[in-house]
Structures are given as C-alpha cells and as structure tokens.
C-alpha cells in the first residue's frame, strides 16, 4: 500500500520545482533550436565558480548578486568557448569541454574553500537541495513564503518577459543569424542575452536541483514539445506545461516510489529527471502525428480503408461477371485476392458495421448501399484506366495496377478533373463498361 503523506512542505516543494522547471524551459527552447543544448550543460557547470565566489565574498547567498554574477559567468563561458573555438581552431564541442570543465573544477576548489564558512558541499552541487528550500522563508506582504519560491518566480517572470518581448528577434537570430546581422537585428547581442538568461536561471535552479540534473529541466521539456508541434509559439507553451508536469510528477514519485520499491528515499531533483526521461519516451512513442505508435495506427487504418474498398470492388466485379445480383465470394477467395490476415478481417468487420455487405452462408454479398459505393469505386478505377491510356499513352496492359492505387483517391478536385477528362467515354481500355455516375459520393473519405 502506498501511503501518501502530503505535508504543506510538499506543496511548497512542488511549487518551487514547477516554477524553476518552467523558468528553465524558456531559454531551453531556444538553446535546443540553436543546436546548443550542451552549451546549457556547460553553462550550468561553469556558473559554479560564480556561485562559490558569491558565497566567499558575501558569506551568504544574496540572490540578486548571485544571479547577476552567474549571468556574467555564463556570458564569459560562451565567450571563452567561442574564443577557444575561433582563435585556437578547436572544434566547438571540444572547446566547450575545455572551458566548462576548467571552470567547474575551479568552482569546486572554491566550494571546498567556502565549505569552512558556509553550508555548500559537493552533494549539493550535484543534486541540489530542494527539500530544504521551503525552510528559508521571507516575509512578503505579511505572508511567509519560501525564499526559493520568490526568487524562482522572479526568474520565471524575467524569462517570460525576455522571451515574449524579444520573441521575433529570438526567432530570427536562432533561425538565421546572418540575415539577422545584415538587417541590423544584433544577433550577437540577442544571443548573449539568451546566454545570460540561461546562466541566471541555472543559478536559481542550482540551489534546488544541482548543476547536473538541471539539464533535464533545460532540455527535456522543450525536446518533447518539439516532437509534438511544428510551430515555435506552441512549442514554447507546450514545453512550459510539460515542464510543470515533470516537476510535479517528479516530486510525487520521490515521496511515493521509495515505499513501493523498498528503498529509503529518493531525491526530488533526481526523480524529476527520471520522470522527464520516461515522459520523453512516452512522447516519442505516442506524440500525435510524429509519434511511432500514431504513425503505425494511421498506416493500419489506411490499409483497412483500402482493403475495404478493394473488397467492394471485387464483389462488384463478380456480380458484373456472373450477372447474378446475389453472387457472393467467400473469405478464402477474398483472402487469396487481397491478402488475408488481420487487415482483411478488420475491413470485413468495418463493411459489415456500415451495412455495405451482408453474409449469406459463407458468402459475402453486396448490399444496395454497398453496391452504390462499389459502383463509384469501379467507375473511378475505369476512368483512371481510360485516362492513363488516352492521355498518357500508357499501354492498356500496364494500367490496372496504377489505377488500383489511384482509385482510392477521392479528392473532389481530382475526381472532377478526371470526370472532365473522360467526358463521353463509355468503355474502359479493356472494353468493360464504365458504370454510370449516380447519387452523391458518400464513399469513405480516403486521403492518400
């Protein structure tokens, strides 16, 4: 049994985690699109000496000073990476590796030095200490709220203002920096503002989730959002929502899962990263449109529609050949003709449900509605055959297969052009009668 003990403390922790996570996702979207997700990682590490210096110089962490120091540190990092890359001729990824590991190591040395005076240790650097965040409260208009929540809310607000006020400039400079430069949009300035915002956010996040797991917050929600949408603004909004969900579920898992799995406890920041990872997998498989599963489902549904129409066509031709209104075909023959298996089974079910066919003994027979659909289908098929032979000069014995695919197209534009191109033709190239057009076309829409 899971015993969920939810304390006011937990509410604060979730609130802080959600706000930080959302604040991270905003610059994260643009870093991801720049193809510089790892620059986020570099910055997250490289701000450490800034933080440590802040502790050393001021004894405690004044959020304002720290954020500004870190933003500068981040810009310095990005600048140094470019310097090593350009002047040293070192590949950009390697340049990042050189710069951020050096700065991170320097930061660790400083942390060691600072540890005598203040509470800051390596474990904090890695995992953060969001569980402790609600302990420090500040007084805001008579309310006691955790300082961490206040600071991260301000950060979120700053990032929202930054991203929405400079929305079109960010979009342009990330998409096409050279055009931005030529048109005087200052891509360098915009980029360093983005880096500054990232670095400042990293510092705020650092206290809560540490400098390594923060990358999960910075990159994973935007990466998921990118899988779901092809538009920038929806991507930003969706990444905000997903960031919030990851953070909330992360803490919930941190307080429930250890009981289930039987270990002592789990850190909230660690679980946020784990939850983000699993959510990402989920999106990867199930994202509407782009996900693996919806794509498969789409293909299967299309296959079923196509086979349904082929069944109608086959039954119609049998009726045409025998001249018998009650002529039918059994399943074995249909399977031999159209390929059997699950798609045929599902197609027959679908036709039954729509009352296009009925069963008499072992034989499947067209209903009146089915015959109308089949007639239109066969008409399309034979019109295509005629058109292919007459207009494109394809040899008559070559057109059946192509027409077999084209007949499933029911786009109105195409059908009416096809009708116009074939006005007056009564017989298809094989001498078979093209069925009359009658009634409205209520065949199942099948977009190919």
């Amino acid at each position, binding site marked *: 049994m899971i015993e969920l003990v939810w304390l006011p403390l937990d509410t604060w922790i979730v609130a802080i985690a959600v706000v930080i996570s959302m604040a991270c996702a905003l610059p994260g979207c643009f870093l991801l699109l720049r193809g510089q997700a790892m620059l986020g990682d570099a910055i997250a590490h490289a701000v450490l000496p800034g933080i440590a210096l802040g502790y050393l110089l001021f004894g405690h962490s004044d959020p304002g000073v720290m954020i500004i120091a870190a933003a500068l540190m981040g810009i310095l990092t990005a600048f140094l990476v470019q310097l090593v890359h350009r002047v040293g001729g070192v590949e950009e990824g390697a340049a990042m590796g050189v710069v951020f590991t050096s700065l991170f190591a320097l930061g660790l040395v400083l942390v060691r030095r600072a540890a005598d005076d203040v509470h800051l240790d390596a474990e904090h650097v890695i995992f953060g200490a969001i569980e402790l965040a609600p302990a420090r409260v500040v007084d805001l208009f008579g309310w006691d709220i955790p300082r961490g929540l206040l600071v991260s809310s301000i950060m979120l607000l700053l990032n929202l203002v930054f991203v929405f006020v400079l929305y*079109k400039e960010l979009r342009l400079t990330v*998409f096409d920096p050279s055009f931005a430069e*030529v*048109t005087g949009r200052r891509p360098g300035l915009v980029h360093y503002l983005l880096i500054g915002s990232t670095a400042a956010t990293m510092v705020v996040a650092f206290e809560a989730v540490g400098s390594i797991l923060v990358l999960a917050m910075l990159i994973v929600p935007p990466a998921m959002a990118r899988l779901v949408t092809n*538009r920038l603004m929806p991507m930003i909004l969706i990444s905000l929502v997903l960031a919030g969900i990851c953070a909330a579920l992360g803490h919930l898992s941190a307080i429930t899962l250890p009981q289930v799995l039987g270990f002592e406890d789990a850190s909230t920041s660690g679980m946020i990263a784990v939850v983000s990872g699993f959510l990402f997998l989920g999106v990867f498989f199930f994202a509407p449109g782009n996900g693996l599963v919806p794509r498969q489902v789409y293909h299967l549904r299309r296959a079923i529609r196509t086979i349904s129409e082929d069944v109608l066509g086959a039954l119609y031709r049998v009726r045409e050949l025998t001249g018998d209104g009650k002529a039918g075909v059994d399943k074995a023959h249909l399977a031999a003709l159209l390929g059997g298996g699950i798609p045929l089974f599902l197609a027959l079910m679908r036709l039954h449900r729509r009352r296009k066919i009925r069963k008499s003994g072992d034989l499947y027979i067209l209903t009146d509605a089915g015959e109308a659909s089949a007639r239109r289908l066969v008409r399309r098929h034979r019109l295509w055959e005629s058109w292919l032979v007459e207009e494109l000069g394809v040899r008559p014995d070559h057109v059946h297969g192509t027409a077999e695919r084209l007949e499933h197209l029911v786009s109105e534009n195409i059908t009416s052009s096809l009708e116009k191109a074939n006005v007056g033709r009564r017989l298809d190239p094989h001498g078979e009668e093209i069925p009359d057009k009658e009634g409205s076309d209520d065949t199942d829409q099948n977009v190919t």
Partner: protein
Amino acid sequence: MSQSQPIPAHDHSPTSPLSIHDMTVSYHRRPVLWDVDLDIPDGRLVALVGPNGAGKSTLLKACMGMIPRTSGEVHVYGKPFEKNRHMVGYVPQRESVDWDFPVSALDVAAMGLYRKIGWFRPVGRAHREMALEALDRVGMADFAGRQISQLSGGQQQRVFLARALAQNARLYLMDEPFAGVDAATEEAIVGILRSMRKEGRTVLVVHHDLQTVSHYFDDVILLNMRVVAWGPVKEVYTGENLRKTFGGRLTLLSDAAEAFASRPGS
C-alpha cells in the same frame, strides 16, 4: 566599360548602388580577396562568377560587414553599409539555415519586415499580409502555412526570395539562389529578377552556371581572388577572360596567400 587590369581609380558616385574601393579580405591571415574595386551601376542584374574558393560569398559578406575587411571601403548609395543597411536585401545560401526550424513559410517571409517593424514589436496582421504578398510574388502563397521542412529545395529558395522581396530594398545581394533548384523554379526566379530590375532595383547574384550568364544577366563580374574582369556581359564575358578566371591558378598570388597563412615552425 570593359575592363581588365589595370583597374583605374573610381570616383564613388552617390548613385552607385554598390561601390567597393580597394577591398582586401583575409581569413586567418590568408588573404582571400585582393584589392577589389567595383562600381555596380544602377538598375542592373549582375552575375558574380568564379571558381570555388574565388571569394564570391566572401565578397558579399565583406560588403555587408559580416566578415571584417582588412582594408578598403564599401559604399551603398554613397554611404557606408551600416548607414544604408535598409537599402540592402540579402538572400543567403539555402544551406546556411536549419530547415527543420519550427516556423512556417509565412513566418520566414515576414522576417524581411522585422527591421521595419522594429524592436520589441510583434508581427501584426498588416505585416503578415505584406509577407503573404511577397510569397504570392514568388508563387508560394498557397504554401504560406507550411512548416518549412515540408517544402522542396526550390520552394525553400523561393521563400528566401520572398523574404528578400519583403525587405523592399534597392540593392539585393543573393548568394547562389539558383543552387539545387529545378528548371521551373529557375525560370520563376529569373522572372522575379527581371521584374525587380523593371522596378529599378539592382541585383548582384553569385552564379554558378556559366551557360546561362549571358542569357540572364546584364553585367558580369569575373572573380578569382581579385576582379579579373567586369562590365557588360557582351563585352566582358569572353573566352579569354573566362580562361583567366577559371584556367590555371593565379600562381604568384596564391603562393603569396599561402606564405601569409603559414606560421613559423609549421
């Protein structure tokens, strides 16, 4: 005004859309353009032709300050580029951007208006309509809502052209707009270039197809690290000038460039 060496000094008339005076550009100390002197006349279609590595893209970028010039001056309608930025439209190479970026064709075309819209202001309805008009001019209005990765190479190139048209500039610099496009798109682009000329705009195009130069363009610049020849196509586009540009390396110049680039001990 057919010209081979030596190129006489120009007076930089304020009417010249693009006037380059003694421009030298180097990458990592290796000179890639030597002493370029050009005065592009108004209202012409100008091809910039030369072998790979001749510095064609570099010339465009150096004119717009994207690459620092080692020496020399560039004037756009009589003023430094920075002062007359608004008069210059730019079509970068298609490969220079990530076409998976989550924007639509309309979004890209609208980017040509950002300068006009100004900082901090959103793209409004009127701007979207202008962008749509630009797309319409290149025959891409029906694809306005498409995400750009779902466009073919030729369509992407047209979207870039629409963005440049939206800029409503007087001088256009285009980096290989014909690269990798099909015949229909090529024809469409040529049509657009001609209508731009009719509107009195000047277009400088980096061009690769030597066969079509005399058919599409008024003037040609033959470039191989230096300007080998430039002027009206009829006078300048000769077998001899082409040989000078493409045949054989300009040995002494390239040797000098190598010497500059090589470092002591390496």
